[in-house]
């Protein structure tokens, strides 16, 4: 029974997953909550591991959730296959149309408008995923256990956003500005930030 649920859920996630890995988190989060496959803690840990391991984040998540929910390799396989099936069907149909008529569908108004609006909706989905992790409804948060969690959150946010602002500001002395920019860009790498947060966690909490 859990296998059927898992299969149908990931089929749904594959079918409605627009806008890349982060937006897909939101869909996976909802399915996990509805079916109670795992604790919040386990889910956040899966997100962390999915972001620092190679490959598409959605596949990483599907494989891990499939395993954790069923405790078996078959759960992993089922979830991974299920998330790919809608892609296969829809993308192949689109490819067939595209290669036959080779239209410049990017200029089609229905296409461009829908993509534009989807981008906005996806923003809301990602925000909801973050909010649910910060403060779940009717539950204590597992990600934010004390003020130190907020410090870590703030620092990581800062380093992720910083490169965006550096692009706009022209440095006073060019050479040192270049070096500074490179340093910030290096620091803003998600894997490095997760590793540093892990080190901070070890120092603070053990």
């Amino acid at each position, binding site marked *: 029974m859990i296998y059927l649920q898992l299969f149908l859920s990931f089929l749904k996630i594959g079918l409605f997953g627009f806008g890349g890995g982060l937006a897909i988190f939101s869909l996976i989060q909802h399915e996990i909550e509805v079916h109670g496959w795992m604790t919040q803690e386990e889910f956040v840990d899966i997100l*962390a591991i999915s972001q620092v391991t190679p490959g598409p984040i959605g596949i990483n998540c599907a494989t891990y959730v499939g395993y954790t929910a069923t405790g078996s390799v078959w759960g992993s396989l089922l979830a991974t296959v299920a998330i*790919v099936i809608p892609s296969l069907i*829809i993308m192949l149909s*689109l490819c067939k149309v595209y290669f036959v008529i080779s239209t410049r569908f990017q200029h089609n108004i229905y296409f461009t408008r829908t993509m534009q609006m989807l981008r906005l909706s996806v923003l809301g989905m990602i925000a909801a*995923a973050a909010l649910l992790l910060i403060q779940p409804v009717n539950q204590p948060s*597992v990600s934010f256990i004390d003020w130190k969690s907020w410090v870590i959150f703030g620092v990581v946010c800062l380093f992720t956003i910083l490169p965006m602002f550096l692009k706009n500001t022209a440095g006073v002395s060019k050479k040192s500005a270049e070096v500074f920019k490179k340093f910030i860009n290096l620091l803003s790498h998600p894997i490095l*930030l997760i590793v540093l947060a892990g080190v901070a966690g070890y120092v603070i909490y053990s």
Partner: protein
Amino acid sequence: MLYLQLFWTYLKIGTFTIGGGYVMLSMIEHEVVERKGWIDREEFLNMIALAQAAPGLIAVNSAIFIGWRIGGWRGVIATVLGAVLPSFLIILGIALVFQDYKDLPAVEAVFKGIRPAVVALIAAPLCKMAHSAKITWVTAIIPIAGALLIWLGGLSPVWIIFVTVVATLLYTYLKERKSSKH
């Protein structure tokens, strides 16, 4: 061996890109356009548009496109397996091992530090994404309403996507019909 090449190329892409679909795109461009010359840049841009338009993972969608374009059905099998297999095996390995270690106090402490960082990595890119989606004070209503409905209302994100697509298509259709009448 064409299929082996397709498989190998996507295996490389799947193994050496960390951070999901968008990061993969530059690697895919390097391998497929520059090194192999399977498609040109114009077609690559078409591929990205298609891969984003179709639901599902962008990396997998692009693998399907290249596989189909270069090797038909068998090509698709080769590229999709190549893109998915490294992830699947690596995560499975981690899942098997992590089960035994996750309750160690040291591991728990490490993850206590990592969890807020993960939330930050989800929340922080929103600034950049909002900027590139050309958000205004008026259009900000859509993501804010969506976020609140999912967060506090417990609504499935599936509905958000569904309503967005149907409403936009309907609105565009009505507007087009109106303008063609005049």
